[in-house]
């Protein structure tokens, strides 16, 4: 395995692994806070039970997220010293801010997980809010750093050196808003609908279990609005990509020839040699309209990009199709759930919706993975779009296949352990049809 490929594989694997835990780390605290708040207002002990059980799972996942994030902060240098030497002073700022956000997240998570009996219920809920807010901020800051790699601003390039740095300007790069919005919504949608899916599946077996009913309500409250808003934010992202990263857009859409009134290709397989898409369904002028808001607009094709600067077109196109398809499914199911809720119908009684939710359990996470494949692979061969090539950023150390194998084994072991432990947690959830539903007189935690 060539060193560059090994380094890219290791980085891709580390990111793909970490993002799952990062997403959960952003989403779960909000679910726990909503559940705990509902307990405070309604006194229904199922919500307290829920917050406590979720917090156990979150403790496991957060720990793995923290350590896998640490791997990344070191790997930036271990694998890409050329990148960090160049980019450190420009995008260190969001990383520094992320450091503090992560600090708050870790501090208040410790208080939240271990403080049930040590602080007042109000202070406990507030600690949960702190975890949720700082978790969201950590994510936003890291995504801003990534956005800069797609749309590098805030410096002037002179003989390969960056001068006239403006780290704030770098944070305000054109990709920041659309990327942070898309990723934050994705975190809530993926976590919310995954949890909703798990409890929907359990409800299909035990329709009267109040614990799972409470869980489904809270999970949909967080996941469904995010899933409905996500296509709108996706449109914003696509418009940004169309304007600033034409090669990426062309790869996403498998758009080989620059043309006006370009059609949108759904599905299909890009034949890179023949420069055409096989078996795709074309919607006339739709790409021009979606990318630029004008059905006659010109959309740059891959023919406008030098061949050696193309990303892996089939991979990017396929990933993009997967993301959009899954996102559409999630938005549709969420709309239906919202419609039922608006008409005051019982979601729990609708077995068809429960089945659709259960079927969609992993979709948010698959969509997140696919979306990052589009972002990262679609930027290749650049690490910093138009500025630094990936092959110039890689470490000179040979034999990179060895750490790649090591980390692969490590991630497999961690994944197996996490799945095993979470399964244990879920299997322990209450199974009686009627859990205590009495209102407790004293709302303080037992």
């Amino acid at each position, binding site marked *: 395995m060539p060193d560059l490929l090994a380094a890219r594989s290791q980085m891709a694997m580390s990111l793909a692994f970490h993002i799952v835990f990062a997403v959960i780390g952003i989403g779960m605290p909000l679910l726990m806070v909503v559940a705990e708040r509902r307990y405070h207002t309604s006194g229904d002990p199922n919500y307290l039970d829920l917050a406590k059980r979720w917090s156990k799972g979150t403790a496991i996942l957060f720990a793995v997220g923290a350590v896998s994030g*640490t791997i990344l*902060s*070191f790997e930036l240098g271990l694998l890409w010293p050329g990148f*960090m030497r160049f980019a450190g002073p420009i995008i*260190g700022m969001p990383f520094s*801010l992320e450091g503090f956000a992560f600090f708050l997240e870790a501090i208040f998570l410790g*208080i939240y997980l271990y403080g049930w009996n040590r602080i007042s219920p109000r202070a406990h809920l507030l600690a949960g809010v702190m975890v949720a807010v700082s978790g969201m901020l950590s994510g936003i800051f890291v995504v801003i750093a990534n956005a800069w790699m797609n749309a590098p601003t805030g410096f002037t390039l002179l003989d390969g050196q960056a001068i006239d740095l403006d*780290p704030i300007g770098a944070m305000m790069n054109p990709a920041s808003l659309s990327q942070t919005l898309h990723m934050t919504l994705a975190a809530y949608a993926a976590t919310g609908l995954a949890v909703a899916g798990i409890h929907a599946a359990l409800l299909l077996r035990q329709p009267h279990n109040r614990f799972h009913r409470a869980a489904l309500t809270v999970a949909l409250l967080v996941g469904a609005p995010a899933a409905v808003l996500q296509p709108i934010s996706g449109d914003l992202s696509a418009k940004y990509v169309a304007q600033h990263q034409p090669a990426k857009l062309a790869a996403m859409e498998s758009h080989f020839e620059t043309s006006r009134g370009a059609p949108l290709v759904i599905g299909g397989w890009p034949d890179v040699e023949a420069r055409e898409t096989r078996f795709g369904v074309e919607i006339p002028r739709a790409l021009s309209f979606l990318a630029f808001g004008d059905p006659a607009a010109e959309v740059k094709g891959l023919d406008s990009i030098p061949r050696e600067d193309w990303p892996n077109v089939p991979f990017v196109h396929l990933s993009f199709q997967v993301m959009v398809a899954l996102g559409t499914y999630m938005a549709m199911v969420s709309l239906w759930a919202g419609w039922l809720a608006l008409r005051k119908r019982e979601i729990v009684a609708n077995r068809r919706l429960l089945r659709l939710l259960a079927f969609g359990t992993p979709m948010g996470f698959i969509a997140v993975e696919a979306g990052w494949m589009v972002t990262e692979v679609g930027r290749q061969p650049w690490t910093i779009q138009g500025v630094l090539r990936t092959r110039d950023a890689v470490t000179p150390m040979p034999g990179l296949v060895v750490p790649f194998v090591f980390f692969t084994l490590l991630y497999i072991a961690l994944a197996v352990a996490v799945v095993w432990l979470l399964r244990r947690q879920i299997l322990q959830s209450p199974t009686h049809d009627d859990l205590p539903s009495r209102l407790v007189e004293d709302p303080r935690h037992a």
Partner: protein
Amino acid sequence: MPEPSLAVLLAGALMVSLNVYVVMGGADFGGGVWDLLATGPRRTRQRALIADAIGPIWEANHVWLILVVVLLFTCFPSVYARMSVTLHIPLTLMLIGIVLRGSAFTFRSYDSQRDDVQRRWGAVFAGASIVTPVLLGVSVGTIAAGRVPAAPSGTFIAAYVRPWLSPFPLSVGLLTLVLFAFLAAVYLTIETADAELREDFRRRAIGAAVAAFGAAALSLGLAYREAPLVWRELVGARWAMFLQLGTAVAAIGALAALSTRRWQLARAAAVVQVSCIVWGWGLAQYPYLLPPDLDYATAAAPRVTLRLVLTALGAGTLVLIPSLYYLFRIFKTRPS
């Protein structure tokens, strides 16, 4: 050219973060050492005490290391890049240690409480708690020895293995491990109201203090040959005399306080002692971040970056300090 004072300030902030990581996060690793070495009839209670002490705070303590890394690559990017290349192997192994320590510790808390299951996770947790500090120390020792060049040259072994796989860096690794264990044992005497457990850890703390003295002497001796710059400063410079004196007073003070069972004083003295050692290394290298050629002024990022980071550090600290205070007040108030 950046204002030198700004670069010094940030190098200082870096050292402070590293120092806090060592005295807080270091003790969490030390806890793992004592988990492994738990013996006698109170073995299970010792382990439970360690787990209770580390549980709520290790993740917050761990963030200090992230802060060190972020400050390093933002403010001194060439230092970070050079370290990452030459120290690729020890840093990678250290990372694996960090991952296994954190995850195994958490997995153990949430897995079945059956003995065999607990022991299996415990072994991973304790093993990783030993490997990680050693490799952290080895990396520091390699830097102190001036073996992190601008561009690696020669064979794979010469460029990526020999710089760190030699007696001096290894001795610093050993010293780091012993100091972390020392800190953990001293802190644990305060964490419990159980007099027997307190005595257990008192004995361990005294043992570790003696071992730390030996390890420090070994490192200093080896520095004469392998890290002459640091050795010269530590032995010859006037500031070093004061620092050596401070270390000695703190070390003796910690031992005396442990002997007379003045736990709070012992903890304070232990923190001072370990901090003196950290700063002794940092100051002995001054003005070099990577001796013998890369000093802080050359390595520093442009002024605008330094100034912004310093502002962020100031603002961040305002939020961080009360939060940390709250965390430690909740969990580290002495049980009555």
